[in-house]
């Protein structure tokens, strides 16, 4: 069955939250809450709360990146120093740990930062082509609720959005 996309724009954030809560409660046939996307001009943890708990996995990338960076640095530096195992070091260690810690630490941060960015791009699905249902108002002062559902659910969507004073409802046939 073909799916339809609807984008409703709201001026009032409380109304948008109420609309999402009602969409969840209404249990509309042909619509899954995972197919709802909230678009907002600012970071909105309180509005996102009504969407339910959604995991963020960026920190795993951070952990992997930081550890990899640190290990790479330590083995690069220690490996380079180990080349001199045959050289007389006057009793000093071939691989001195305290000074090596500095570079290990720097690369720990570098790896962490780079891979965190990579993780962000993967987790946020960026770069991406903008969806057809997009309004520049969302980057200004309005909040958008994008839903995807069966043809049969469209009327229910519209009723809920209108009830919660949506300023505009855009519609598009999807896959």
């Amino acid at each position, binding site marked *: 069955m073909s799916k339809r996309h609807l984008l409703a724009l709201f001026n009032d954030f409380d109304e948008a939250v109420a609309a999402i809560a009602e969409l969840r409660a209404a249990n509309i046939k042909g619509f899954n809450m995972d197919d709802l*996307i*909230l*678009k*907002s*001009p*600012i*970071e*909105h*943890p309180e*509005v*996102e709360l009504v*969407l339910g708990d*959604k995991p*963020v996995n*960026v*920190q795993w990338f*951070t952990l992997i990146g930081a550890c990899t960076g640190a290990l790479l640095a330590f083995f690069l*530096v220690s490996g*380079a*120093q180990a*080349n001199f195992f045959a050289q007389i070091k006057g009793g000093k260690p071939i691989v*001195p740990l305290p*000074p*090596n810690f*500095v*570079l290990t*630490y*720097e*690369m720990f*941060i*570098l790896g*962490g*930062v*780079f891979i*965190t*960015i990579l*993780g*962000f*791009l993967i*987790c*946020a*699905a*960026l*770069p*991406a*082509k*903008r*969806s057809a249902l*997009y309004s*520049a108002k*969302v*980057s*200004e*002062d309005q909040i958008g609720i*994008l839903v995807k559902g069966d043809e049969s659910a469209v009327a229910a969507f519209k009723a809920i959005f209108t009830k919660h004073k949506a300023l505009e409802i855009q519609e598009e046939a999807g896959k």
Partner: protein
Amino acid sequence: MEKDIREDIAWAQINKDVLKSLESPRRLYWVILLIALAMIGVAVGSEIYQYTTGMGVSNKNNSHVWSLYIATFIFWIGMSHSGTLLSAILHLMHADWRKPIYRFAEAMTTFSLMTAGLFVMVHLGRLWQVYYVMPYPNERWVWPNFQSPLVWDMFAIATYLSSSVLFLYVGMIPDLAICRDNIHAGWRKKLYTIMSLGWEGTDRQWRNFRITYLTIACFLIPLAVSVHSIVASDFAMSNMPGWHVTSFPPYFVAGALYSGCAAIITLFIILRYVFRFEEYMTLPIMKKLVRLTFAIAMVWTYLNLIEFASVWYGHDQTAKDQLIFKATGPYAPYFWAMIFFGSILPLMLAFKRFQTHLPILFVVSILLNVGMWLERWMIISPSFAHGHYPWTWDHDQWPSLVQWGIVFGSFGWFTLLFMVFCKVFPSVSMYEVKEMVYHRTLALKHKPAVKGDY
């Protein structure tokens, strides 16, 4: 209590005001740009002369192997730290007032690091061998000495520069999307479209953005501290009199934050006027910034005293002689100017009447940075002029005009990069200002009508 920003300012107006700064700044903008270009011209001319004639024209010699180039290198590295302070530390502390001003402070971080990097090359002299700075082995698999603070420097600065650029860029993505949506044609539209990566402000994007920004902020704080500690180690790990001091790393970090905060005040005043940002770069925010600068100035003064005291009461007679030489010898005027500009002048900032007096603050903030530049010079040159061995003493060395020309031009280079950035990219974070307005509106909405309602 004074408001940092009006809570009744419309969000559309915020977009409009900031986007306007990308289109039509005041005429002063172009004047600043022209002056910056002229300054760069002086530096380029000096560098070409030095490059073609040889390093001798800089007036550096066997005693004074480091001179203004390294002093200015440290100055620019230090300048970069306040961007991190404002954007990362204050972000973690939920200090809302940073929101309208952190973006340009971050840009300042990036461009001062880029300026600092140039001094490594200028100091090197043999530009064609600049790749020697990179750590790689020679044909016999001999690597550079990884125990040297100079190699640490290269790693630390490269890490700081790349992380700062990424931090600046990631924090700008939602604003770049606003630019993309509001600018309808031309190269700017293409640039913003590419750089905004298709950002739509979805819940998924914001959720990941929030964690990413926070994570990088957490990384940047220890990184900034480590970078200047490592730069301090270039000195403290050597055996030169006046440098071999344990308190050097925190002293350098405090000095870095201090000069950076002073520079933020200067740039705040310039941007506020040039881009008509009076609504966003407000006087209450300036007041907080000035207080922060004052506090850091006092920390720096304290660490200065600690440094002098540890030399004075220590057992290193050469270091003590060197301190006396600094305060009474040929460098005395510059040494006392440093003390005046760095420790006495900031006392003015404690007075309320000066905390929002922009013309006075503009002059004072520049003088504070003059003091901080002198500090770096006073760390380097007197130690070379009056080292351990009397036969290396050279009290009369004075940097040549070539050195002064390159140092002078570096300020033009920084200004050019910074001002071009502010004209091409939003220098006030639109989405964060909106958040600030939103949270204030919410707070007002939930404020008890009668005291004691809660």
